């Protein structure tokens, strides 16, 4: 180890040499003095002295520094060995680097999303997410302010409970209004999360429910819109055309409490005093609540505590708490709010796939290593008989594997610093303020180190230990190359090949299932026609218009856009299906008595006239909305088939009434079911209301055209700006693009599984090729003899081929058993195909079998073509 300050060590080494030399000289001198000749004295003294390097070696061990020297020597030896076979070194390093990178990439995604749900927050493990009622993907905010306040003040399990509500709003006051994502938060929000302000202060407890227009800016907004103005605190800015005062700036990196979503600014719950209704009604559920557990309190205890409190609240206010009121707690990594619910369903499975790839690669490298060791067995035997002990040999061989893995780990580290950033590529343009990226922090680096160590153990130590077991004398005696390192090594080699095939088969089957799922999703009929549709969001609700003004503008927009050339149908909506955005509300059918804990949530959308026409959703009974369904007309509602069957089974739903947010709506139509979020969802009841009677939070212009919807975009934007140039228009894109969001997780799954399976296929096929070719080469002599004794070429061909096919057959059988046991874990990610789909399984088995056959055919063909005479000569 040259870089060590081993000055003293080297001096001592020299002195030891000198000391032993002096011993020898004195012994010679004594013998000469006794009358022996100089020559005889030297020979005798040397023989008497013994093995000088060995004496040096055992003496040095007494210095207590021996291991360091050994390590240095082993590293140098290993480097020399690796340099001697660059082909092996480069192949093995590259394969390991790819396999480690696959693992660390997926892990960095998990780390960046599930493991760091709230960047910047203190002691994330103590934070839990509260859900009330039904559990599903992306539920609506579950708590009203008064309920939240009671829970916060009466519980004894939490160090703090915070609440927030996210919404879009427009930053006005500039040349163009800018839509930003805002959060109404409880006063203790930053405190419970453990965030300290970068500038200014955060909210005071007394400000929570009062109309004080204060705002906290996120670091990125402060940077991009206000140029990092150091004097921003105290300045007034305009939000939705209301002046508000900046009181603080959040630190860099903190983006809010909803995992994966980016907040731009924070205000208190009712900063303008305009939201009195939702501050004072227990049936106004609009808050998402996160708690920090007291030290020593478990999630279960806290849930029990909250449920007891909730029980009292429900008993006191039964009318405001219909439906399911049970509270459940989740760790932030699995919080249903934000994106982690989706992540938790996808990423761990991909990590398991990557783990299989790593195992496969290690088995492959172990095969190569073993082959190398077997061909070096003469060298190893000679060294062993010259005094190297087995531990030492094994250590040196393991060192080769360790070096490979360390280099591969370093390469993987470099690769991962790039691949971890690719996660965001999988998500199409969308209207969600998504912040999704892998992270390259210490955890990932440590993960890579651990993975590399595992790989080193698997592909270095195992073959080293096995090949060191051959008795030195036997190996040296055996002159012929036909003993291929003993039958034990042969068995290990075969075992490794079988393992590679058995591991790659499930990978291939899963990726086949994922790919077919993706195709099924793409070709599935969502129940609506999304072709030739353009959607554009108008920042009507966020820009600070009154309800009356907004309705007027909506009418104007419809008029103008309908009149544009090329527009077949123009309508309005507040929701686009299959964008991962879900809206829900409580709907109480008149006269319907819910069971205890029955959820009365339905999905809802507020749509304009001709909405169903524009999407080709048939109205099965009744009619669709018209311009006349406005605020002056009686409230009307359209339900889908699922809702109709749930509430009025066997009856005519037309004319029935539903109570939604305090008003009674009469059913005027039944629409055919269509996809809400995922093609493979189980249908939930859905209701549609007229946007002119019950305006939603969004206003989206939806236009059907004959041609390419993108061509219409400038005209639509112009038409809206002609009404009011200050109206923000954003997220203008074809509907087909927006709905891709629904299949983005299927795309991630099939892309990665496909890549992993390809790697697995290549590894398995090269593995079996390598082993069959190697063993055939070792048997060249034997084959020559067989042919000389009359074996035909076909016999030789069959001999070699059958050997490889046996291994393939065993591997396929094992792999099939593993696959059949494992595919049920991905069952719920599949669509339109069973987890044990026979067509996929059979075609994958045929593919892998055919590739293996080819891999065995090549060496068999070569062996058949050999000239027996030269083959016999070859040893």
């Amino acid at each position, binding site marked *: 180890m040259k870089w060590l300050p081993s000055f003293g060590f080297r001096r001592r080494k020299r*002195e*030891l040499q*000198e*000391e*032993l030399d*002096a*011993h020898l*000289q*004195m*012994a010679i*001198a*004594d013998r000469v003095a006794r009358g022996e000749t100089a020559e005889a004295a030297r020979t005798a003294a040397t023989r008497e*002295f*013994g*093995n000088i390097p*060995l*004496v040096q*070696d*055992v*003496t040095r*061990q*007494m*210095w*207590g520094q021996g291991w360091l020297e050994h390590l240095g020597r082993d590293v140098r030896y290993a480097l020399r060995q690796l340099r001697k076979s660059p082909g092996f070194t480069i192949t093995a390093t590259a394969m390991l680097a790819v396999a480690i990178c696959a693992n660390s990439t997926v892990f960095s995604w998990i780390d960046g999303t599930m493991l760091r749900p709230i960047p910047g927050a203190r002691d994330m493990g103590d934070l839990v997410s509260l859900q009330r009622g039904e559990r599903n993907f992306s539920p609506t905010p579950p708590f009203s302010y008064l309920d939240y306040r009671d829970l916060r003040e009466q519980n004894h399990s939490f160090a703090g409970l915070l609440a927030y509500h996210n919404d879009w709003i427009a930053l006005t006051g500039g040349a163009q209004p800018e839509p930003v994502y805002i959060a109404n938060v409880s006063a203790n929000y930053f405190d419970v999360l453990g965030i300290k302000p970068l500038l200014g202060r955060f909210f005071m407890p007394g400000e929570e429910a009062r109309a004080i227009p204060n705002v906290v800016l996120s670091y990125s907004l402060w940077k991009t819109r206000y140029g990092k103005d150091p004097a921003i605190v105290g300045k007034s800015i305009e939000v939705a055309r209301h002046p508000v005062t900046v009181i603080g700036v959040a630190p860099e990196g903190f983006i809010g409490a909803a995992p994966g979503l980016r907040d731009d600014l924070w205000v208190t719950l009712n900063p303008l005093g305009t939201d009195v209704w939702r501050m004072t009604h227990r049936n106004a559920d609009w808050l998402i609540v996160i708690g920090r557990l007291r030290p020593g309190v478990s999630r279960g205890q806290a849930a029990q505590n909250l449920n007891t409190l909730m029980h009292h609240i429900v008993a006191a206010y039964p009318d405001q708490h219909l439906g399911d009121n049970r509270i459940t707690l989740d760790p932030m990594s699995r919080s249903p709010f934000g994106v982690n619910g989706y992540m938790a369903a996808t990423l761990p499975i991909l990590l398991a796939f990557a783990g299989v790839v790593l195992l496969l690669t290690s088995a492959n490298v172990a095969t190569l290593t073993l082959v190398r060791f077997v061909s070096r067995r003469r060298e190893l035997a000679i060294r*062993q008989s010259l*005094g*190297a*002990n087995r531990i030492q040999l094994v250590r040196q061989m393991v060192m080769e594997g360790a070096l490979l893995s360390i280099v591969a780990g370093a390469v993987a580290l470099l690769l991962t610093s790039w691949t971890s950033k690719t996660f965001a590529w999988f998500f199409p343009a969308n209207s969600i303020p998504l912040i999704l990226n892998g992270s390259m922090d210490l955890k990932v680096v440590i993960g890579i180190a651990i993975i590399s160590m595992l790989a080193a153990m698997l592909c270095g130590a195992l073959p080293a230990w096995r090949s060191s077991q051959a008795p030195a004398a036997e190996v040296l005696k055996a002159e012929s190359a036909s003993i291929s390192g003993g039958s034990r090594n042969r068995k290990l080699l075969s075992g490794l090949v079988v393992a590679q095939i058995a591991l790659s088969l499930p990978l291939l089957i899963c990726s086949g299932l994922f790919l077919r799922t993706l195709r099924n999703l793409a070709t599935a009929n969502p129940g609506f026609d999304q072709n030739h549709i353009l959607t554009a969001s108008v920042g009507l609700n966020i820009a600070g218009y009154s309800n009356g003004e907004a309705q007027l503008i909506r009418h104007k927009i419809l008029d103008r856009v309908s009149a544009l050339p090329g527009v077949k149908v123009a309508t309005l909506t507040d929701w686009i299906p299959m964008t991962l955005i879900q809206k829900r509300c409580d709907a109480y059918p008149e006269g319907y008595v819910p069971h205890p804990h029955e959820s009365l949530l339905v999905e809802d959308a507020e749509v304009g006239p001709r909405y169903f026409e524009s999407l080709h959703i048939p109205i099965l009974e009744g009619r669709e909305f018209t311009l006349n369904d406005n605020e002056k007309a009686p409230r009307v509602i359209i339900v889908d088939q699922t809702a109709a069957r749930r509430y009025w089974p066997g009856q005519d739903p037309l004319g029935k009434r539903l109570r939604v947010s305090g008003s009674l709506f009469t059913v005027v139509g039944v629409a055919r079911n269509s996809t809400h979020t995922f093609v493979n969802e189980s249908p939930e009841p859905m209701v549609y209301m007229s946007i002119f009677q019950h305006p939603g939070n969004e206003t989206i212009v939806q236009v059907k055209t004959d041609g390419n919807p993108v061509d219409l975009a400038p005209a639509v934007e112009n038409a809206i700006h002609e009404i009011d140039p200050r109206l923000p228009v954003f997220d203008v894109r074809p509907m087909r693009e927006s709905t891709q969001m629904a299949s983005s997780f299927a795309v991630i799954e099939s892309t990665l599984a496909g890549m992993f399976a390809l790697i697995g296929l290549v590894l398995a096929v090269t593995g079996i090729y390598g082993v069959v070719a190697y063993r055939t080469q070792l048997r060249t002599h034997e084959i020559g003899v067989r042919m000389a004794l009359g074996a035909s070429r076909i016999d030789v061909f069959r001999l070699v081929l059958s050997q490889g096919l046996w291994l393939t057959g065993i591997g396929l059988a094992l792999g099939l058993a593993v696959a059949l046991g494992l595919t049920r874990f991905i069952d719920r990610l599949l669509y339109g195909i069973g987890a044990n789909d026979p067509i996929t399984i059979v075609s994958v088995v045929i593919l892998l079998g055919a590739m293996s056959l080819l891999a065995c055919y090549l060496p068999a063909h070569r062996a058949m073509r050999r000239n027996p005479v030269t083959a016999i000569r070859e040893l």
Partner: protein
Amino acid sequence: MSEKDQYKNRIELLQGTLDMLILQTLQWGPQHGYGIVQALRLQSGNVLQVETGSLYPALHRLERQGWVQSEWKQSESKQRARYYRITARGKKQLASDLGRWERIVEAIGSVMYVKPKESES
């Protein structure tokens, strides 16, 4: 088993005894490795032939434990050699080694030379 392992085992077997013998030899004055081998051989009447593979590890270990010190000096025959000298701690160690040795010899002796007891029946 390799040669090195054999050395190691012998060191373990003889460790206490060899240390004691070396320290005893150094009682008569500083000596180099070769001198110690010769002295042990002569004093044991050619019975004890200490091998270099045992001697030098033992010397270096004794030095590390602070029981001997070494310095480079010229021998009588003008050969530069490393001389080992027993330290005060080494003398104390020698005394305790000797005590232990005597007890062992006595114990073994009493086993080996025990007179058969009279039958008690």
